[in-house]
């Protein structure tokens, strides 16, 4: 065995979205970092859909951005189309999404890694982790090289014992036709981690020359696109169309009559799949009454002819894929470039992790991304960011970096993962966030800048800039609350001109703006001394004023939530000594080892009575440990 003489502070395994963010953040925090990947060419690769963002995912991208990650900047530079989703609804649930130029995205990310100080990239397959006295020591590659480190972040995606299914054929692969990592998960099991198996799938990629786009509905992005990153200047991205197509009864008939050729329905796949990202065969079987399903045909690349068929993820036989595709209007003559496939892979149930994403079993070992049972680039990136920061904090012996459910979507996701564990691939939704009205995309930077600055993840200049914005918003808010208009006939006439009711008494500007039919721009028509605000600032002002009652309600709920989060359960708390708890609840508590009473409450199956009993014993412990 060759032991590489240089010792790294932190090694990251995997060059996907989690691995890239983790490695960049570690290096940016001045740790000597090594990223090991099976294929350097595949760094930053988008294995599935060519899009970044979407509902709740857009939030994650912006959180990665404020905490020093790269995803937002990367998509801003390589996006083909940008769009705010949910525009027709209130701004609290607006979400950014962009179509990506997949190769451009990948190459820019590789470029960022290659030019990052303190970061090295090496191509290798890791077979084993080295653990000594419960602490991580290094990794051993498949050609017998050992690399030493004090912290290890594994972001192996779907590569652990990856197995691909196309129809009834199966072969070992980590992603498409890339080699899997067949030994690493056994090494993790030896270190004491419990390994499970999940399944996901992707869609066929089509040849654009064989698609009749004239028969399809084009869908463009926003005319005035908004960037993901607060650092992006002079944002002027292209606007490539996607196309909308529909399956029909004929498509469904083809699928139905070929289910015996599906590894899902023939019982070949044992991993558990996602309900929110069902295969087309699942959709047809579970919703037999639906006459059609939507398909989005999305460009993968500005310069190639490959088209991604979003909505058609499938593991059906190659022949069947061709047959059902050609029943779809516009795809009558379509040719497949790469077929859709299902992939089964090993994962580590994240219940075995702390909120820092460090494993409870091995000190200095962190896991991020799909290995934790999540799905999605954004979910992976956010975990990479959190794991990277925490690896650094661990090495510098500093306070761990933990985001609360009341602070960020990343916090919601990680708390869900480590408290509830994973049964199917986990995806973020806005509904998972209890305080959705406060955790908005538009205020991500404002909410989290302080924390980011405290952990050294944002530079002074950018921090000052954000502070300035916050100040301006607060000033405008108080201007609106403290400025009154009088019920003069002239003013009421003006109000009528913007289609809102006249006023009878003097009224503050914020009361006027709170009216559903009034917005900042209409007020600007009749009031000439309003401050000059940009789109984002207007949006934030309107949200703060129009939603005030609901926002205050959520703030109160957060106060209640914090009360329970502040009741700490000590690490050595012994649940075996507590009577009155059922065996099952004890088992779950010992598995999760909740940090706070609040977290204990969120464990599935927990009862109010159990919480009360725990609180009694916590209190008793506190009373006893106090000096007499």
């Amino acid at each position, binding site marked *: 065995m060759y032991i590489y003489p240089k010792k790294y502070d932190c090694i990251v395994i995997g060059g996907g979205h989690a691995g890239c963010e983790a490695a960049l953040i570690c290096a940016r925090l001045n740790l000597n970092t090594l990223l090991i990947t099976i294929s350097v060419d595949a760094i930053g690769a988008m294995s599935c859909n060519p899009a970044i963002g979407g509902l709740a995912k857009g939030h994650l991208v912006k959180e990665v951005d404020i905490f020093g990650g790269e995803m937002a900047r990367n998509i801003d530079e390589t996006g083909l189309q940008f769009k705010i989703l949910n525009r027709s609804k*209130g701004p609290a*649930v607006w979400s950014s999404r962009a179509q990506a130029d997949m190769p451009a995205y990948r190459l820019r990310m590789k470029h960022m890694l290659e030019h990052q100080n303190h970061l090295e990239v090496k191509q290798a397959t890791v077979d084993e982790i080295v653990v000594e006295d419960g602490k991580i020591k290094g990794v051993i590659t498949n050609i017998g090289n050992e690399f030493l480190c004090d912290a290890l972040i594994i972001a192996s995606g779907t590569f652990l014992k990856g197995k691909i299914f196309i129809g009834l054929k199966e072969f070992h692969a980590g992603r498409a036709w890339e080699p899997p990592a067949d030994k690493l998960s056994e090494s993790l099991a030896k270190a004491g981690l419990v390994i499970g198996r999940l399944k996901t799938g992707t869609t066929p990629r089509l040849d654009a020359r064989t698609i009749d786009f004239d028969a399809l509905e084009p869908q463009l992005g926003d005319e005035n696109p908004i960037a993901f990153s607060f650092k992006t200047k002079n944002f002027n991205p292209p606007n490539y169309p996607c196309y909308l197509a529909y399956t029909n009864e004929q498509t469904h008939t083809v699928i139905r009559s070929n289910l015996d050729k599906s590894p899902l329905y023939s019982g070949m796949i044992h991993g558990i799949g996602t309900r929110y990202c*069902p295969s087309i065969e699942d959709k047809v079987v579970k919703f037999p009454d639906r006459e059609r399903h939507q398909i989005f045909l999305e460009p993968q690349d500005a310069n190639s002819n490959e088209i991604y068929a979003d909505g058609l993820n499938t593991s059906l036989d190659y022949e069947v894929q061709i047959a059902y595709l050609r029943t779809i209007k516009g795809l009558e003559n379509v040719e497949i470039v790469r077929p859709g496939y299902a992939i089964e892979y090993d994962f580590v149930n994240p219940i075995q992790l702390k909120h820092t994403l460090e494993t409870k079993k091995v000190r200095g070992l962190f896991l991020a991304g799909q290995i934790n049972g999540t799905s999605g680039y954004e979910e992976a990136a956010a975990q990479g960011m959190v794991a990277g920061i925490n690896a650094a904090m661990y090495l510098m012996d500093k306070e761990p970096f933990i985001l609360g459910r009341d602070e960020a979507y990343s916090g919601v996701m990680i708390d869900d993962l480590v408290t509830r564990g994973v049964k199917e691939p986990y995806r973020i939704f806005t*509904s998972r966030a209890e305080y959705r*009205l406060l955790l908005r995309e538009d205020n991500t930077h404002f909410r989290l800048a302080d924390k980011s600055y405290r952990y050294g993840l944002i530079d002074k200049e950018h921090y000052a800039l954000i502070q300035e914005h916050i100040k301006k918003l607060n000033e405008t808010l108080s201007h609106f609350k403290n400025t009154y208009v009088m019920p003069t006939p002239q003013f009421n006439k003006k109000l009528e001109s913007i289609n809102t009711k006249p006023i009878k008494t003097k009224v503050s500007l914020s009361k006027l703006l709170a009216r559903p039919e009034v917005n900042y721009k209409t007020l600007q028509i009749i009031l000439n001394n309003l401050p000059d605000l940009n789109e984002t600032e207007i949006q934030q002002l309107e949200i703060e004023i129009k939603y005030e009652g609901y926002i205050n309600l959520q703030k109160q709920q957060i106060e209640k939530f914090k009360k329970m989060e502040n009741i700490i359960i000590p690490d050595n708390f012994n649940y075996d000594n507590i009577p009155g708890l059922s065996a099952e609840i004890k088992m779950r508590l010992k598995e999760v080892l909740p940090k706070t009473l609040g977290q204990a409450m969120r464990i599935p199956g927990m009862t109010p009575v159990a919480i009360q009993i725990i*609180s*009694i014993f916590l209190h*008793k412990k506190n009373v006893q440990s106090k000096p007499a």
Partner: protein
Amino acid sequence: MINDDDIIAAISSGYVESAIGIIRVSGKHSLELLKKVFHSKKCDYKSNKIYYGFLKDSSSKIIDEVLVSVFKAPHSYTGEDSFEINCHGGLLIMRNVLELILENGARLAEPGEFTKRAFFNNKIDLVQAHAIANLIQSKTQKALDIAFNQLLKKNTTIIDNLREKITFLMAENEVIIDHPDENLSTSNLKEKLILLSEITHLIENLLNHAKKGQYFFEGANVAIIGKPNVGKSSLLNLLVGFNRAIVTEIPGTTTDIVSEVINLNGIPLKILDTAGIRQHSNEIEFIGIQKTKEMIDNADLLIAVFDSSRNFSDEDKVILDIIKYKKNVVTVLNKSDLPKKFNFTFLSDPINISCENKKGIDDLKNRLYSTLLEDYNESEIISLNTSQVLALKSALKQAKRIAKSYKKFLDPALISIELQQLADYIEQIIGKIENEDILDNVFKNFCVGK
């Protein structure tokens, strides 16, 4: 979770008819509370002493004549300042005393809470603490058996239905927010409003069931009305079984309201004898009549008494007018032992009674019971505590608010908060609706996911 500063109170002798009732109160500032309500000539609030006096409410009305034992920290069961009231053991009296204490700043103790505090204050060691944990477990379980489990067993369909409908509205709202570009068919305004009115109906149904259940725990008020000298007081005495109200032949003898509690198949029935209602009266009677009117409004059930041995009079007409719009009325034809002067054919199914011969009383009792419970099958009746009833009432209001919000096409992000509030209000009745439950519903009912 742990509110050390709260004053807690409970009927520690149990809520059953007995000679003496004991109300236990504990908390840091409990003696200040006692000073507000306890009026005693000799009380100096020394520890481990018993004092004689009266409990009075804020209007100085006497609630009961009582003995109070004072225990000061740390020499009490809980280790806090505390006191115990020995009052008379009637159900209503115990309830009134407890309410007085609650009105003055205490809250109802949770099961095992006194013992829990004793434990916190090191009055009990760890070995005993184990027993307490088990006690809380079992007591809470018992409370659950009585309320929640009973509810589940008897009203599975109502509860399941309610939970399913609310979850569906939440799920649909989340689909609208989280899957905007998937062109999913969600229900229109009219369908949503129908669903909401079904939810409202289910909650009302539960409340009605609970209202009947409350009769068993908290009693029901029955007012006897009728023109002067129709035999109201005699009827009261007959129902109670001893002479309580003053009975004379002089019309208008009952000037104040006289009440007695009887046990009607398990329902503590508070029977109120009213001043006779007539058109001409002197001043004293008028006060009684005012009270009578209030009482009629507050009664759960009215017994309207007519005299079949006398002719129908204008005064009877007044009574008919009163009961015309009332739902729960039992009509009684008294003096059935005397020759009939008038056939009250317009009364639906009156009960013939003779107070003089004590006849017809069992019929009357049966009718009172069945009228109180209306069409509800005894086995379907549930008991909800006051906070559960309040929660259901808040849920009703919230459902109305959500209907308005739907009509205004309020932002789904805000609708979601309103729906969550609705679910929170009745969480203890229908169970907590977790995010996972909503997602399950989403995946079951909507074909989401690209």
